[in-house]
């Protein structure tokens, strides 16, 4: 049976976990969007060396487990003497991982823009940076947005991996509460429900945003 009194007693701890999970997911997604955009632009460009570097980066990140990446990032930063918290180390690691995946989505978005439009922009006098900012990006975002939604949802769930380096996000808070109360069913039920509420809310909000952006394209 679910013990609701237990949940009322421990909800401040769970809320702290929610806050950290969301922080990791959103900041990670922000870092991922920046890294992914940069990689997407490089991968769609003509610089062979930069492209090779980007492809190697994407292959390494996509070919190794995120758990290993989080641990390795934390250990490397610690060994290097970088004064960074476990929370930030996990956020950066998750962001770098997300960037590799998002780069493929952003690359698709960039290449979906008709080449003729890029030529039109060039003949009108747009620089490469202006073409990306004013022509490619607004169109690519329509392709990227649905994938960004699933990426944020994935990151909310993957934020639990930060517990391996001692970050007290939602699932780790749950483990601590279970160790104190020995009521695993109640806590796991609550954690699952909270994850479901967070991911469903994100899905609804992103769907609304997607509809709003695509409304103009169909007008």
């Amino acid at each position, binding site marked *: 049976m679910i013990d609701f009194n237990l949940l009322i007693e421990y909800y401040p701890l769970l809320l702290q976990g929610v806050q950290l999970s969301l922080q990791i997911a959103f900041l990670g997604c922000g870092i991922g969007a920046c890294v992914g955009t940069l990689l997407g632009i490089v991968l769609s460009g003509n610089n062979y060396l930069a492209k090779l570097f980007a492809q190697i980066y994407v292959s390494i990140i996509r070919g190794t487990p995120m758990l290993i990446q989080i641990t390795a990032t934390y250990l490397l930063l610690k060994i290097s003497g970088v004064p960074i918290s476990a929370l930030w180390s996990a956020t950066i690691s998750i962001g770098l991982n997300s960037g590799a995946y998002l780069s493929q989505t952003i690359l698709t978005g960039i290449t979906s823009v*008709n080449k*003729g*439009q890029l*030529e*039109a*922009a*060039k*003949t*009108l*006098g*747009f620089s490469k940076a*202006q073409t990306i900012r*004013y*022509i490619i990006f*607004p*169109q690519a975002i329509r392709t990227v947005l649905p994938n960004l939604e699933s990426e944020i949802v994935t990151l909310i769930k993957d934020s639990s991996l930060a517990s391996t380096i001692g970050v007290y996000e939602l699932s780790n808070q749950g483990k601590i509460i279970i160790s104190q109360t020995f009521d695993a069913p109640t806590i796991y039920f609550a954690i699952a429900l909270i994850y479901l509420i967070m991911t469903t809310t994100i899905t609804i909000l992103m769907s609304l945003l997607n509809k709003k952006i695509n409304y*103009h*394209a169909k*007008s």
Partner: protein
Amino acid sequence: MLSLKNISKQFHHKIIVDNVSFSVRPGEIIVLLGKSGVGKSTILRMLTGLESYDTGSILYNEQPLQSNLVGMVFQDFNLFPHLTVLENITLPLQKIAKKSISDSKKIGIDLLTTYELAAQANIYPQSLSGGQKQRVAFARTLAMQPTIICCDEPTSALDPVLTSKVAQEINKLANQGLIVIIATHDTELIKQMPCTIYLMKHGKIIETATSQALADNPDMFPDIKNFTQGGTSDTTYI
């Protein structure tokens, strides 16, 4: 004056443009006539800086041509689908010509009014007909005040009535002192405006005539006459 001197270009060891030379004065219309693949569009792309050339030179008033002097109306119009008709015109004005929002809007509305598109200012290009899209493409290019305007197959998507209108618009541009260079295989278009015709084959200009001389004495220009009468097979002129 715009001068192309001995321009050549190869692509994958295939000659696309072969030693092409011609000169155009302000107010003149040049028509590069020929079937698909003879190098007409490549010449326009060289003028706009979209393609390089292997040999020769392109000069404007004896100086290397600056691509910002050249405007291009593409065969597929290449309007920006995420921007309204008006924004298609105002964005380059604001970001490239550094006009204020109000000035660029005024220029845009004036041009759209000229092209009878003021009512469509706030709709998106995908809602326009082919003819309307083309007029927007003209308006967008002209807003940047080019000295030379290149039109790639400007009538390929148009019916005879609209073709006639496009010819009138091109005439107007030439009368305003612009250099107009058109790549087309549409022989109806050249009958409707005073121009100099360069017939192209295998990347070369094989015959030249003014539209007036062609009308007066077509037999003097057998290749162009043959082409305009549709008497050539694709294999002859590709």
